[in-house]
């Protein structure tokens, strides 16, 4: 047992409601089981006793085939829809209430040590005594609140968005299963249990991206997401082997304690940290494994909001924060994380500038913002990273759900006039503020937040990250170490520069999206325009709540400079017991502080960047000049490169996927397996035996002459043996 963990019973939380923490993941699991059975009952029809006997005649399967038609059509609402609408979101509401209960219990208690709850002995093998343990501490509490909170809102939104979908119960079953696995990930007390959640969410994203599986593109996108995630999981697995082999334990607490004893910047700590980060790049879509996230937009929009914006993709950031004990011992690894984060942020932002599909814009914006978070946790400012994670969850979920209601309206319009145009392309939108005022205003709040306009949540979290990067550039373990020859200090400054550039571009492409979708003339088409109307209240309700959170989210962790607004450093204080020690270790003992004037200068540059970005976009972009997608001109030059996302997908496909497939087909299977082993040895030896047989048979020509010859040759050889003996 790890010394740091005090026995379970004695923990202050044990007496409070927190002891029902195991109920948190259980509720969504129950939701999944109920919805799952409802989905099966609705669709399945058990076959006859003798399967091969009678072929089902067409009409008997009529109803089966009927509901297989176009998924968005106005099929009859699924017969179990009412029950599912209650169970699905209901389970989330219950979980959220329990979570807030635990949250308030935790606020009233001094959380020196995490609350460990052992469920059962999972893998008791040799000296790997692995138990299924849940670990509840301030960090996982924050994540639980985000998951259940935002998750609940998105479930409610989905009731409206997916109301006419024939796979309605199946959708909520998967969504509940996702929340279950996400909670397992966050509550995992040991890395393998965390890994169960880690791959579980990967599975759910596979199922949900490929939800409308009858279309090959969606199924492919799901498969691609799962496989790229698996590449990341390979890294996670190897990290676990390293931990077990070198540190002897796989429990989160144990590993952190043992890591502290390792030499600073030692090979083991760096290796474990780097492999863990490989896992994070897979799950949180950083370079080089970000390719799956844009394709993941093939799934329903609420899924993109929940999984590919708010929760799953932030799992990587959570893992780095959770393993802060190891990362803080490996400055080189930290620098790698920060650099990759900054590069991804910048790279994704450039692509985002030229995307036409509204969800693709938001997807690349997510990849970019995730890069920001990794910069935060990479430089050891775990609180800043987590703070940006939380605020990002609010405004990005709002943006996605907003785009969801836009798409919902566009679909309704196109469906009314049986027009099969692309409902997600901004070039077919325009001037929607007249038709969807609520969504319009809320989307502007989110845009201002993400751009970093002061008093909105984005400003506080983004500024916190940038200032912590600047602070550590002068005085931290990172500044002293170096990566690939570049000294840490200059590298951090470069990262700071990239951060500012990304902030500028974020402001530009977000305003571009707003202008093209809501402002300027309407391009949907004269017939369709009257059908464009605001989404029902069940969808706009959650938008309003998210809008409030996006606006006032900054209040959670007000920087000292603007102390007047609210409690200074709320989140900082909250996460202190979990990541405090690791943060101090990176900043050489005393907390990083900047002189008043430097901080003022940083804040003002950030504000100027945001304002300039928005102004530049408003001034340069002319929504009126846009034409609908079907007659839009082919992009040329660098725009085309950006639009086709630097041809990275095609590059991967040509460089890795096709060669492996072709090599394994031509060389390994046909060449080696069928060719050498089968052809040469197995069938070859059979051929040899047959050849000898044939030679023998040639002697039996039936002619006396031949026999005489053979006879004589025998005699001669015999005599020869005697003569030469």
């Amino acid at each position, binding site marked *: 047992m790890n010394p740091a963990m005090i026995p379970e019973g004695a923990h202050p939380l044990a007496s409070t409601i927190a002891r029902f923490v195991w109920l948190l993941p259980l509720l969504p699991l129950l939701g999944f089981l109920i919805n799952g059975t409802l989905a*099966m009952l609705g*669709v*399945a*029809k*058990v*076959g006859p*006793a*003798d*399967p*091969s006997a*009678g*072929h*089902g005649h*067409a009409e008997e*399967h009529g109803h*089966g*085939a009927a*509901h*297989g038609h176009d998924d968005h059509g106005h099929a009859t609402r699924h017969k179990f829809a009412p029950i599912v609408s209650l169970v699905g979101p209901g389970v989330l509401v219950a979980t959220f209430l329990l979570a807030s209960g635990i949250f308030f219990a935790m606020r009233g208690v001094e959380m020196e040590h995490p609350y460990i709850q052992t469920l*059962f002995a*999972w*893998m*008791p*093998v*040799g*000296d*790997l005594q692995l138990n299924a343990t849940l670990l509840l501490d301030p960090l996982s509490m924050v994540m639980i609140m985000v998951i259940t909170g935002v998750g609940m809102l998105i479930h409610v939104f989905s009731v409206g968005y997916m109301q006419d979908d024939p796979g309605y119960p199946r959708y909520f079953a998967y969504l509940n299963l996702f929340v279950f696995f996400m909670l397992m990930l966050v509550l995992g007390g040991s890395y*393998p249990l965390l*890994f*169960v959640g880690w*791959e*579980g969410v990967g*599975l759910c994203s*596979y199922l949900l991206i490929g939800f409308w*599986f*009858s*279309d*090959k593109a969606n*199924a*492919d996108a799901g*498969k691609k997401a*799962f*496989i790229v995630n*698996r590449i990341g999981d*390979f890294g996670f*697995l*190897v990290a*676990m*082997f390293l931990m*077990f*082999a070198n540190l002897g334990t796989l429990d989160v607490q144990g590993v952190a304690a043992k890591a502290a004893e390792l030499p600073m910047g030692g090979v083991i700590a760096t290796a474990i940290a780097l492999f863990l980060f490989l896992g994070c790049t897979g799950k949180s879509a950083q370079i080089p494994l970000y390719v799956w996230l844009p394709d993941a937009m093939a799934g329903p929009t609420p899924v993109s909001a929940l999984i590919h914006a708010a929760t799953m993709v932030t799992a990587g950031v959570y893992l780095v924060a959770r393993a802060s004990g190891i990362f803080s011992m490996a400055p080189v690894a930290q620098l790698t994380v920060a650099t990759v984060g900054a590069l991804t942020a910048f790279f994704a932002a450039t692509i985002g500038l030229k995307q036409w599909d509204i969800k693709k814009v938001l997807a690349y914006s997510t990849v970019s913002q995730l890069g920001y978070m990794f910069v935060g946790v990479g430089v050891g400012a775990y609180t800043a990273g987590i703070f940006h994670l939380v605020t990002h969850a609010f405004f990005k979920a709002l943006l996605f759900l907003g785009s969801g209601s836009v798409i919902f309206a566009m679909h309704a319009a196109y469906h009314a006039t049986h027009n099969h145009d692309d409902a997600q392309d901004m070039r077919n939108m325009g001037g929607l503020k007249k038709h969807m005022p609520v969504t319009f205003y809320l989307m502007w709040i989110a845009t201002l937040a993400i751009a970093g306009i002061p008093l909105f949540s984005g400003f506080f979290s983004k500024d916190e990250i940038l200032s912590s990067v600047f602070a550590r550039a002068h005085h931290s373990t990172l500044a002293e170490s170096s990566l690939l020859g570049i000294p840490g200090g200059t590298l951090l400054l470069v990262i700071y520069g990239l951060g500012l550039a990304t902030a500028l571009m974020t402001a530009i492409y977000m305003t571009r999206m707003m202008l093209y979708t809501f402002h300027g003339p309407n391009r949907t088409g004269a017939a369709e325009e009257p059908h464009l109307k605001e989404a029902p209240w069940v969808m706009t309700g959650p938008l309003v709540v998210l809008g409030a959170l996006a606006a006032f989210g900054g209040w959670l962790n007000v920087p000292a400079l603007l102390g007047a607004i609210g409690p200074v450093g709320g989140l900082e204080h909250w996460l202190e017991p979990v990541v405090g020690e690791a943060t101090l270790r990176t900043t050489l003992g005393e907390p990083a502080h900047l002189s008043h004037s430097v901080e003022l200068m940083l804040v003002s540059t950030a504000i100027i960047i945001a304002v300039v970005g928005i102004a530049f976009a408003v001034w340069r972009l002319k929504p009126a000049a846009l034409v609908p997608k079907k007659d839009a001109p082919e992009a040329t030059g660098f725009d085309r490169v950006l639009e086709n996302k630097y041809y990275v997908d095609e590059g991967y496909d040509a460089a890795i996927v096709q060669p*492996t*497939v072709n*090599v*394994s*087909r031509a060389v*390994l*299977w046909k060449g080696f397996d069928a060719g050498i*082993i089968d052809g040469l040895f*197995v069938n070859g030896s059979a051929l040899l035996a047959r050849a000898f047989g044939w030679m023998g048979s040639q002697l039996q020509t039936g002619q006396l002459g031949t026999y005489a010859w053979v006879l004589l040759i025998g005699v001669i050889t015999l005599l020869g043996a005697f003569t030469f003996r």
Partner: protein
Amino acid sequence: MNAFLSSINYNAWIVPVLLLLPAIGAVGLWAHALLTAKDPAEKRWREVRVLAFSFFVVEAILSLGLWWSLDPAAAGWQAMVDLPWIPQWGVRFAVGLDGIAMVLVLLTTLMMPLAVLGSWTSIRTKPHAYYANLLILTVGMLGVFCALDLVLFYVMWEIMLVPMYLIIGVWGGERRLYAAIKFFIYTMIGSLLMLVAILYLGAEASRVGGAPNFSYDFILNNVHLDPTTTLWLFGAFALAFAVKVPMFPFHTWLPDAHVEAPTAGSVILAAIMLKMGTFGFIRFALPLFPGAAMNPSVRTLIVALAVIGIVYGALVAMVQPDFKKLVAYSSVSHLGFVMLGVFALTTESMQGALIVNVSHGVSTGALFLLIGMIYERRHTRMIEDYGGIAKVVPIFATLLTIVSLSSIGLPGTNGFIGEFLVLVGSYKTQPVAAVISATVVIIAAVYLLWAVQRIIYQKLAKPENESMQDLNWREIGLLVPLVAAIFWIGIYPKPLLEKTEPAARRLVTYVESAAGKAPVTASNQAR
């Protein structure tokens, strides 16, 4: 439960009964064939099905007692029966079980009824012979797991071959003869070498102990060979088992045998018969020749072959057009894991190997049953003949997804536990091999998901697929226990691990200690 078992003196008679019951069953079927010669074929077919199934069910129920009656911690053999069989040659009918063998025996006895149920409606020609073959096959397999006498082991090893040859050869697919002959000759060549090695050991034992003696314990404790002979004998045993595993270069019989075998045949072949090879290594090759097994060059060779087998099997599986061949190559990859686990020689990796053994049996057995079901409906195994059938056969699609995920090794299912333990365990002694084998986590996801997607997702293009029937209650009842096992081993493998832990730990310490010292002074610690 234990009280009841000991009251009926369960341990004393269970193993011989387990071996004899199927034999009696086979005779019974033969008698049934004679008696009802005149009845219409349909009626006889239904009767013999039920008769055979009842024999297998009785066998399974009887064997369940093993789970409680065997105390895994006790050293030495359990449920031991030792009768003289051929006194002149010193061959005894010695059977007994330990933790490892018991788990595999249970896997066999519980898998057989499912396999029979799997081919309930698909086998109509000459049913009596078919089910008699399955019964004799069970005798062979159980005999191999329980044998404690080398000659008895060899006899059972051969008994196992003939029925399988007939099953593939008579009730198989188009190229069944080629596949059956190839399977037979491949295994036969391997096992002949083993016979030579067994006889050599017997001779050596008679030189040491006076009379010729093939008993496993006697040879284990008293026969000490110089390093070179140990290497040669180990080579002979290893070849026979390598063909059976199948390890990398000797695996080409598996895809053909699987593709051509009928559903029950390939289920048994995958679920149980492939475990003979690995069980052979664990029971015979390692303990009898620890010196050779610990010899660094031999060990690196076998680990290298195992790793190649893992990655090669996965890569080749990716490009197979035929779904059954794809699963066959995936078996090569999974069993490569077992070999890696066995030869990494740490308790975790050995335990992991045993779990992969069991979980591969469950998942691949279920996969083959599923393939058999759609084969019965559409009579084609080619992946592109399907597409989008999730809409038409949702139950099948859900079950196929669950079983494929367990075969990929998704955490929470049985595949993950086995693979994780093998990799974590073998990282300590074979770090490079473990990391390379870990990459197969990706390739496994690629080949199975790609195949599953092309079968159940995408557009429902082909008209024949639209009229497919979903699974009937028999088929669902058949798969439910397997899916339950998948999640049980995945979430709460503790009871299974406890059964095999002591035996695995003893094996690892014995091999390491025995190989460490020169063979002459090997301490004859009880098995």
